[in-house]
């Protein structure tokens, strides 16, 4: 055990030193990518360069990234079906908590909307907004608010799929004039990106929320035999 820690320590020290060396010795790039981004900004349909990179110049990365999120959900769904959970009773049924939630929820929704909207000219965007949405869902759950509409499997899945399907659909539709995949016509780029971002926000929010919901809620124990009081501690 100690040997392993020592070895691990040495290894990590070595890696860190090598990395430091690499950082110190690095050459300055000849290629000036920021400049290219800046000069292509007018055609991108958005004003903020990060959003332009994410959803236009390198939108293919974003497309695959959404697929990664979906894969995680698929695995979670599969495992829950293979290892069924008991009906969940998560959350504290506390009136005070509910009252706070009633204040917080609208605020969260507004923040999410703002983040999404802000993405076009300052830091922000679909993922940030989606995460905030998911946080709202998590809070609801922790407050013990029953969310039956989330248990509707088909609706839920449609919501999950919406973002990626829209993204794919738009990417393919714009090809009709004979241009490559994901080539937004400059005139409509802003609109198309907005539509994609909107649907992505919703889907990302739902994805993160379902990942939260799909882990076994409390019955973590192999024998599930411990008394209720223990669990609440």
């Amino acid at each position: 055990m100690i040997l392993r820690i020592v070895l691990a320590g040495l290894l990590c020290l070595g890696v860190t030193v090598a990395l430091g060396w690499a950082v110190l010795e690095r050459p300055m790039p000849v290629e000036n990518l920021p400049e290219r981004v800046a000069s292509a900004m007018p055609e991108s349909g958005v004003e903020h360069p990060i959003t332009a990179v994410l959803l236009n110049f390198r939108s293919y990365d974003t497309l695959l990234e959404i697929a990664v999120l979906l894969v995680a959900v698929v695995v979670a769904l599969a495992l829950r079906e293979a290892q069924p959970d008991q009906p969940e009773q998560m959350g504290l049924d506390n009136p005070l908590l509910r009252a706070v939630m009633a204040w917080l929820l609208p605020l969260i929704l507004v923040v999410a909307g703002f983040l999404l909207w802000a993405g076009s000219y300052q830091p922000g965007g679909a993922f940030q907004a989606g995460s905030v949405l998911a946080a709202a869902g998590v809070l609801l759950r922790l407050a013990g608010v029953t969310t039956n509409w989330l248990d509707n499997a088909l609706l839920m899945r449609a919501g999950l799929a919406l973002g990626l399907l829209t993204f794919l659909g738009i990417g393919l539709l714009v090809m009709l004039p004979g241009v490559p995949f994901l080539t937004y016509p400059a005139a409509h780029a802003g609109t198309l990106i907005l539509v994609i971002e909107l649907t992505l926000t919703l889907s990302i929010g739902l994805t993160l929320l379902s990942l939260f919901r799909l882990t076994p809620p409390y019955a973590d124990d192999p024998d599930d035999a411990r008394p209720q009081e223990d669990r609440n501690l």
Partner: protein
Amino acid sequence: MIGLWSVPLLFALPLALGILSLLVVPAWRPRLIFVGLPLLAAASLDVLAGLATAGPQVYRLGDWIAPLGINLVVDGLAVGMILMTTLVATLCALYARVYLRDHPPASSFFWPLLWFLWAGMNGIWLAEDIFNLYVGLEVMGLAAVGMVALRATPQALAAAMRYLLAALLGSLAYLLGVALLYAAYGTLSMAGLHEAATNNATTQVALALIILGLLLKTALFPLHAWLPPAHGGALTPVSALLSALVIKASFYILLRLWLVLGPEVTPELTAQLLGVLGAGAVFYGGWMAWRQHHLKQLVAYSTVAQIGYLFLFFPLVTNTSPEAARLAWDGTLMMLVAHALAKAALFLSAGNLILAVGSPQISHLVGISRFRPMSLFSFGLAGVSLMGLPPSGGFTAKWLLLHSAILSGQWWWLIVLFLGGLLSAAYIFKVFRMSFREGPQIDRSVTPPLTLDVVALVLAASAILIGLFAHLPLHWLRMGSVLGMG
């Protein structure tokens, strides 16, 4: 533009099918293959036709030029891998449709995962951007982990967890390497790196990180520990997909980067070291395979061994004559393709044998040759290719590698190739010995559905035929590669 539609469809179609299969009722999930497989086959063939008529292409996603946007490279290597994936995955899908019928409903999540896996792989084959490769690796890797976990037994979950940890660590090492390369050269495009990369500390550290990360994902000895439980314990079609295709993706990236960075940057010492690790894999994997008692574990360790051959590529192309390098390129790719076909066939026929005797133990195969000759025949054909005996893809590959080793004067790799072949004969014939033995009669051998046997046989036969008709595939694979033209 050639391949305007077919190139993006190669990943867009599986992505769309992956989502659709989530939305339909479980019973309909397998049926989507009747839409998906023909379309994907058509797209792959169209890409091949484009390559054959117009040569290698660059596909600009979003119509942005490389360092700004993401480009896809449609050269012989990429198209070869795409066709290999289409063939193997199609057959595995047909197999799975029948195989999964008797499995619990949770296994119908195999289908969305298959499509995402496919999309990830096609994305990797086409990628020209090193960060895009990272995302592609994650799509493929997480889908693969999910497939391993699909059984949800404690063993499957542990195997999946171990696999996931290895994959994540590998990804991060790769990502850090990419970060360093970007910091040094300001580009993520392989073409750009090819132009800009010079030999300095940053490049070497980045290369080392990338190599380590990819080795972990490829499960090269001694970083292979996650592979046998994951591949040996999964559902049979999953094992076949993972062993045949998934581990090839990380090797493929390494191979591309090695050639992109070029001989000035790639150190000969590292190349030899990779070769030595490959040799270690061949010996250790072969030895461990021979010692296994479970049929699928044996096949999984055989994968550990066969990966080793692929890594002989690096010493054979680094600072050697153009002829030796070309032969090594041909041989390695032949090995890769032949292994994909043969290993898929081996896993599927092993699965059939296990279905037939109802036990994963090799010792329970006594006398099975009388009842399941066809499964055993597929197993044998695939084994011929793995042993590198003629006539087979494995043999042609070995022939080319031997040639390259002699031409480059690195005779020590000959020993690896010879002993490796004999070791694989030892573990393949271990199974045969058992199946030919006339022991206590088994009278209750189950007859698996004919489809399962036919699929395994088709794969095994293609592993043999590819060796006899290697000329044209190798010609295509060379198109647009640094080595092929030289």
